[in-house]
């Protein structure tokens, strides 16, 4: 287990930290929001991200990536989380690249991975159909039609859906909602006939879309992974994404904690620095413990992915749930300890809190993962 970063990983982290801190501070998200940017991300920033190799971090060198693996990706996502950096990194470099690498044919890999690494193709996973994450509940259908398939159904909470070039669509070729069997994945051109995409404006000012599929025709080679048996491939990619998301969340938790700690050291009330109040000190110390505990859980989950350990799903659920709980506590405390100004849009606490709640719902909240953790533990 790799609880200590290698020299290479440390360099990557420092590079990512410098980049996001300097080039993509929280102000960048504010600008996108206040200007009502239609893309929901900054194309110049994305270009820089690609140039730094972050888009291809999972992708092997033969396909134009840097092959840093999950640990590297987690390191970068954490730094992105520290500044709430909005970019297609999660949708494309984590979910997109992850799914294609896990389930794609050689042809699909060769066709898509280099474009992902080059930042030229944006991918979005169209998975959710209900208010709560649960892949088994997929009801959307893909019916055999000629050589190909006809896709019909509605997807929601499709991250980066309205900017994606290619959608990875999870649909049923068999079974019914609740079954693991019968799930398939399809690569669908976002501009295909019958695909209708509506951007949703979320509380975190980040991208999500509703996508409806009205008799969308795809050919047989659009199938990604095993027909009717995609659940395992999907789940393993989702675990990768869950851990990367936990990394992004922990990055946010760190910023909120650091900022709040600074505030405790400078804000005066009743003539004294509020950081001298013991009740606040103890709460700050407890938050510190939470952050530290989460670092361990995250590093373990990234190691599990890196080493393809059998307990990866459990480690992923532990990370998503434990970091999720900590982040909720820390963002709430961040606002409360800032007092009145914590409630204003002018300071960043609110932005982190809003983002935290969206992250909580992405790919399963604490309740989902606690239950899954117990399921996987055999009790």
């Amino acid at each position, binding site marked *: 287990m790799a609880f200590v970063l290698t020299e290479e990983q440390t360099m990557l982290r420092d590079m990512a930290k410098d980049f996001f801190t300097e080039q993509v501070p929280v102000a960048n998200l504010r600008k996108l929001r206040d200007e009502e940017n239609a893309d929901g991300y900054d194309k110049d920033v994305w270009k820089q991200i690609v140039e730094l190799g972050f888009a291809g971090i999972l992708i092997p060198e033969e396909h134009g990536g840097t092959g840093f693996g999950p640990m590297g990706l987690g390191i970068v996502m954490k730094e992105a989380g520290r500044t709430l950096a909005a970019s297609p990194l999660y949708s494309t470099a984590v979910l997109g690249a992850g799914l294609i690498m896990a389930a794609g044919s050689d042809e699909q890999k060769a066709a898509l991975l280099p474009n992902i690494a080059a930042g030229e193709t944006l991918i979005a996973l169209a998975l959710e159909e209900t208010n709560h994450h649960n892949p088994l509940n997929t009801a959307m259908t893909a019916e055999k039609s000629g050589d190909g398939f006809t896709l019909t159904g509605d997807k929601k909470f499709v991250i980066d859906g309205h900017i994606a070039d290619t959608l990875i669509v999870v649909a049923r070729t068999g079974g019914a909602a609740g079954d693991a069997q019968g799930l398939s994945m399809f690569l669908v051109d976002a501009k295909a006939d019958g695909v209708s995409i509506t951007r949703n404006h979320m509380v975190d000012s980040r991208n999500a879309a509703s996508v409806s599929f009205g008799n969308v025709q795809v050919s047989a080679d659009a199938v990604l992974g095993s027909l009717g048996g995609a659940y395992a491939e999907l789940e393993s990619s989702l675990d990768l994404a869950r851990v990367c998301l936990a990394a992004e969340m922990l990055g946010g938790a760190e910023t909120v904690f650091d900022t709040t700690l600074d505030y405790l050291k400078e804000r005066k009330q009743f003539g004294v620095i509020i950081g001298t109040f013991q009740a606040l000190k103890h709460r700050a110390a407890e938050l510190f413990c939470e952050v530290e505990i989460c670092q361990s859980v995250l590093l373990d989950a990234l190691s599990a992915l890196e080493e393809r350990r059998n307990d990866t799903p459990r480690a992923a659920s532990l990370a998503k749930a434990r970091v999720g709980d900590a982040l909720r506590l820390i963002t709430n405390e961040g606002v409360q300890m800032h007092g009145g100004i*914590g409630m204003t*849009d002018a300071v960043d606490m609110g932005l982190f809190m809003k983002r935290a709640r969206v992250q909580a719902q992405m790919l399963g909240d604490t309740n989902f993962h606690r239950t899954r953790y117990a399921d996987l533990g055999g009790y």
Partner: protein
Amino acid sequence: MTALDSFREETRAWLEENCPASMRTPMPEREMPWGGRKASYPNPDTKTWMDNMASRGWTAPTWPAEYGGGGLSKEENKVLQEELGRIKARPALTSFGLWMLGPALLEFASEEQKKKYLGEIIRGEIRWCQGYSEPGAGSDLAGLQTKAEDKGDHYLVNGQKVWTSYADQCDWIFCLVRTDTSVKHDGISFLLIDMDDAGVEARPIKLISGASPFCETFLTDVKVPKENLVGELNKGWTIAKRLLEHERSMISGMGMGAGAASMGGMEAVAKENFGADGDKIAEPGIRQAVAEHKMDQQAFGLTLKRAEAEAKAGQGMGAAASMFKYYGTEVNKRRFELLLDLMGTQALGWEGEGFDKRELAVTRSWLRSKGNSIEGGTSEVQLNVIAKRVLGLPDA
């Protein structure tokens, strides 16, 4: 027939005639009758209703008639409220002047001041806001720095207020100002300031919920006539404390049951999102969380009722206001967190397509709820108060 009975009969008849039909329907937020010089009335009946009620002094039913109030006894007021309730009448006037300033003026102001200001409040002519908090003094209200210098016939006021509710839409502000810098609590005075005066500027503060119900209010070389001082010089803290108690109990009751109620209740939301197994919420973890929260909520509700009963019986729970403020706002915050958990992505919309009005309102209310444990004295301040005043724990 008792006098009270005939009062009821007369009141009923008067209301029948003077309360417009549209004023007997649920009130949308934009039709709130705040009054004031800058008021607009999307529904003209709002103004008619306000004027009708004001003409009898019934916007302030128990205030003395000599100042334009209704002059009603406690019993008569009860009858009036019952009759208003019977026809589901909207409030004729909602105003910080009525709720906060007026009672303070009645207790502390001079005869001239009462004559001048109470009538304006009762008639909804002047909309008031409160200028207490300052950027440097949040929980430490008495640490305020806004200075009022004695310039002979007027005070010269300089400073900055924050968290002034709707200051940009108000006409006058009641302010705490420092008139003696050598002492803390005993150097504070209570001043009334016309916001049309030169040097007063209100800038809305944008909150995380997207709304701007508060302003920063800048006071730069504002000349305030000396007759605008309420009570004695340097004795403003006494007035402030009285007003604060009132504010705390207002906030602790805020939002109880709201949010989930608009969605049909916590259980319904849970079943809608996670399905039902017979009668039961199908997802066990969610079911537990809902039950736990409903227990807390019921327990708090019962405690409010107990406090009422004890107050009636002349018993006091002691620093009850601080306890309610602390516990009530914390329960309220937990309610919204749970509601977000239940509603999943549907509680995460900001605007536009994909979310209905009620869902969007939950998101905003969740964000708003975070302020409950900050405004009107933070949770930390309430715990300090309980520790000191109720538990008698010593200061360091």
